[in-house]
Structures are given as structure tokens and as C-alpha cells.
């Protein structure tokens, strides 16, 4: 039985794909729960299925097995439009590849998240040290700065769950610390954070760490 307070419940999740006629299982029988204010990190080597797990949790990739319940709804039993609505309102996604819209300035890039005003967008950019660059375009920013914009977009609409896929990959220590601290702070303010990482640096910030390769809890019991 899942905890009624849980925001996200993952039951026996597994995913496989076909590669040149060969069936490849990326992970299987993955179960955990995530409640508001929790910061959960998923660890594993490259190719272990961290991104796939996060995409499934965000309602963007239907898993081969198992269920993902978000706010009490089985995500992949819902129609596409309903999942889109949930993503718009309740989930913030921070991609590994720093996806920003190239033709929008920083404020507009944050504003494409649902219901975010220019004022709120600029406040977040300011909070992340980009207050003076609001009118700049992504191509004018460094890698670390772009990651901070993407983080602002993921959390500016105050989603219930923030999913961050290796948000500090290729970032220097200073930027990494900033990203982790903002995510931690977000969780402490009532949001839940699910983050994929392969860095030990995460440990001090996460409430629990899931090793996706062995599917064991390294830091705390998540279920």
C-alpha cells in the first residue's frame, strides 16, 4: 500500500527497448515513493536508465512495465491531454541537455512555463544570479548560466514535483553548489525533487539516494 501523503508512487517500473532485434532491459522492478519536501537522488552509471526513469516519472515516456502514480493518478492511464495538463501545472523538468528556446530571451524562456509572469520570471533569474541578463539570449550565455535559466524555468511555476536530469553535469563546483542548494531549498519549501546524478556531491543534499543499477537505497529508506 502506498502512503496517502505520497506525491509520486512508482510501482514495479521497468523499461526495455529493442536494439537491432535484441531486447535490452534498462532497469526493472523499480519501486519507490516520493512525498512533498523530499529530495530523492537516483544514482547510476551512464546508460543505466536514469533518464528513462525520470522521463517515465514525468509522464513523458510510457514504461514497458509497472505504473507511475502522480497525485493519485496513474499517469499512463490518463489521456495525453490530461498528462500534458499535469506536466504544465505540477511538474517542472530540468533536462540534461540544457534545452532552452534559442529565439527567446531569458525572461521569455522562463515564461514559457505555465502561468509565469515576467515579474516572477525575472525574480527567479535574479535569485539565480542572472538578474542583469534577463534580455540576453541563450546563445550569449555560458553553459552554467544556461543551466541556471533552465532551472528557473523548471521551478518558476511552483510545481509540486521538480525532476532534474543530471543538472550539474559539466558545471563547475560553484554552479553545481548553487543548483543543488536551490533544489534543496525548493524541497524544504514544500516541493518534491527527483534528481538523477552520478556524482557523490549530491549526498549531502538528498534525503535518500536510489542506486538504479542495484535498486537499493544507499542513504535512507524511500519505501
Amino acid at each position, binding site marked *: 500500500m502506498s502512503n496517502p501523503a505520497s506525491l509520486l508512487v512508482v510501482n514495479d517500473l521497468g523499461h526495455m527497448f529493442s536494439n537491432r532485434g535484441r531486447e535490452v532491459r534498462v532497469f526493472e522492478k523499480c519501486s519507490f515513493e516520493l512525498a512533498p519536501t523530499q529530495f530523492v537522488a537516483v544514482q547510476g552509471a551512464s546508460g543505466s536508465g536514469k533518464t528513462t526513469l525520470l522521463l517515465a516519472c514525468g509522464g*513523458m515516456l510510457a514504461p514497458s512495465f509497472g505504473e507511475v502514480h502522480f497525485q493519485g493518478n496513474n499517469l499512463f492511464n490518463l489521456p495525453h491531454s490530461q498528462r500534458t*495538463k499535469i506536466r*504544465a501545472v505540477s511538474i517542472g523538468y530540468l533536462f540534461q541537455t540544457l*534545452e532552452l528556446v*534559442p529565439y527567446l530571451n531569458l525572461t*521569455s524562456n522562463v*515564461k514559457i*512555463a505555465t502561468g509565469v509572469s515576467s515579474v516572477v520570471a525575472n525574480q527567479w533569474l535574479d535569485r539565480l544570479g542572472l538578474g542583469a541578463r534577463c534580455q540576453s539570449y541563450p546563445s550569449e550565455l555560458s553553459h552554467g548560466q544556461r543551466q541556471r535559466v533552465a532551472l528557473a524555468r523548471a521551478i518558476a511555476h511552483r510545481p509540486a514535483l521538480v525532476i532534474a536530469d543530471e543538472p550539474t553535469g559539466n558545471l563547475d563546483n560553484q554552479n553545481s553548489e548553487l543548483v543543488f542548494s536551490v533544489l534543496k531549498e525548493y524541497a524544504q519549501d514544500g516541493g518534491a525533487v527527483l534528481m538523477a546524478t552520478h556524482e557523490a556531491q549530491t549526498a549531502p543534499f538528498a534525503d535518500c539516494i536510489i542506486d538504479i543499477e542495484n535498486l537499493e537505497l544507499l542513504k535512507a529508506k524511500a519505501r
Partner: protein
Amino acid sequence: MNPFFLALRELQYRWKSGLVFVLVVASVTGALAYFSVNDTSFQKEIGRNVRDLGSNVVILPAKVDQYSYHLEGGYSDITMAENLVSQLIEHRASLNHLIPMLERRAMCSTGDRQSLGRVVGLSASIAMPDRPKAPMQRSIPSGELQLGSALARELGVDRDAKAKVTIAGEVFKVQRVNRDSGTWQDSAAFIDLQSAQKIFELPEQISRIEAIECTSEQCEASGLQSAVILNNEIAKITDEASFLRKEEMAQARLSVRSVSRDNFLMLQNVLWVFLGFTVLGLALLNSLSRKSEIGILQAVGYGRYRIAGLFLVRSLLLSGVGAATGVTVGMLVSIEQANSLFVMTGQKSSLDWTVAMTIGAVAFLLAVLGGCVPAMWAAGENPADLIGRDS
């Protein structure tokens, strides 16, 4: 965020690809508008040229023996009632430019010279009420006469002389001496029909009616031959007339028009297909280069319709600008060129707003439909398959 705003910003950012899209739509609509106006002008010019070759149908009294008629060089003394003209008009016969004629061989004299000539009384060409055309034959004022070149030489009348010719006791002022035509008309004198009926004492009588057939549409619709259609029509109106069809001239007239029309239709179809595929290809390229962006928008909660809307707004804006530019430029260039290309009718070329609107609207719709395919593709993709995968 407003899809219109997003589409505008995207166009600003990828202005080169937008420009290519506009240029393609403008080029094709421009070419279509150009050839459409050009084809109309060409049809007019050809129509005028063919018309100037003369009539291709002759309606004769039924009593005329056609063998004797041809033996006499297309001449007969037998007449029929002039009101056949109004009957043909009343029954909307498939004819136009009707020219009723009365002719007699009569002595023509001027001063001390005289010669036997073919005196032809004719009226201005009569257009069918629902087929208005510029007159093929203008009226000759009463009391005046046009002389065939050979007859003028016989009578010693120079082209520029203000001579007078007497026919059957009636004096006519020479209006002009016609240029050599190489036909019987060189030995004829032309006067107005009423004067001819008066001097030859044949009131309300005519020898024949010359006309141009207009059966092509009915031939296409019914599959019948022109001669059959005309025969049926005249048989329904009167049993006192028969007709001669100048087969080669009639065929030439029909074929020159249909060849031009078919040619344009083929060109038009090729251009539409080209536009459709090019627009589809460009829109597809655009959406492939925006995979990540589509993924981001889906991830932040943009639904399928909003994503499709972005691409549609883009196609709408670009195809609208392209079609308007192309049609305007194509038409203006065509009209400008018509003056030099079409000597006889070029001055009459004008903007055809119906054609412009039709081409513009079809191009616009085609471009939007072409943009729809990638829009629907983009909207239906899974965001997980798009992120970080720009082509």
C-alpha cells in the same frame, strides 16, 4: 505564451528559412498569376488573329445549289428573308459575329470608266446578346463605299482619291480602297446592306449570313461535332436555310485555343504540385530543425493543438505574405509585358482580380495544408523522443 508571439519570434530568428518559404510561394504564385493574365491576353490576341481570318460559317438559302455556288466562286442570285438573323439571335444559335449580306454582280462606273463588280451590301457584325465582342465588321455609312483593290484599278480609282462610283444609278462616295486580299473581295464593292436592298430592289432580302461558330463548349459537353450541332440548331429554326462550314478555318480556330488552354492547364498543374511539395519539404525541414524546441514546449505543458498552432501560424504568415507578393508582382509584370507581346490586344490587358484572388487563396490554402503535415507530426511526437535531437 501566445503562439502568434512565439511564431513571430521564431521567424525573426530563422528569417532565412522564412524568406526561402516566402520566395517559393511568391515565385509560384507569381508565375501562375503571370501566366494566367498572359494566357488571357494570348487567347484574346489569338482570337483576334483568327477572327481576322474571316468567318468560318456561311448560312445560305436552302435553294442554293452548293455545287453551282462554288463553281461561281461563292456566289448565288438566290436570296432569303433577312429576319433569319433575328431568328438565329432569338434562338441563341451557336454563332457570333453574324454579318448578313446581299450581293449582286452589277456595273460600277466612275467618270468615263466602268466595270462589272461584285457589289456586296453588308451590315456591321452582330454579336449575340450574351456573347458581346468587339465588332468584327464595322458598318459602312449610307452613301459610301469600300472598293476592292482590283476593281479600283479597273475603275482608275487611286487609294487616296476622293472618287465617286455609280452603281445601279446610285452614287456612292469612295470611303477607302482596300488592300489586296488575294480573294474575290479584290473585285468587289462594299456598301451598306440597306442601300444594296434598295438599289437592287430586294427589300428585307439577303444572299447569305457569314458568322463564326461558337460550338466548342457544346462539343466538349455533348461529344457531338460542330457541324452536327449547327445543323440541328438551324433545322429547328428554319427549313429555308442551310450552312457551309469552312472546316479548316473552324478547326484551326478551335485547336489554337484548346492548345493554348491545355498548355496553360498543364503548366498550372505542374506549378501547384511543385508548390505543394516544396512547401511540405520546407515545413518539414523547419520542424526537424526544431525537435528540441517542440520537446521543451511539450515538456512544459504545451498541448498538441498549441504546438500545431505554432507551425500553422508560421505557415499562415509566410504563405499570406508570399501569395500576396507573388500575385501582385506576377500580374503587374504580365500587364507590363502584354503591351509589347500582344500587338493587337495588349492594351486591353487588365488586372483580373478574380484570378488574383483565386490563385492567392489556393496558394495560401496549399501552403497552410503543406505546413499542417509537419505541424501534426510535431504535435504528435513524444517529448522524450525529441529532446536534444535537432536535425
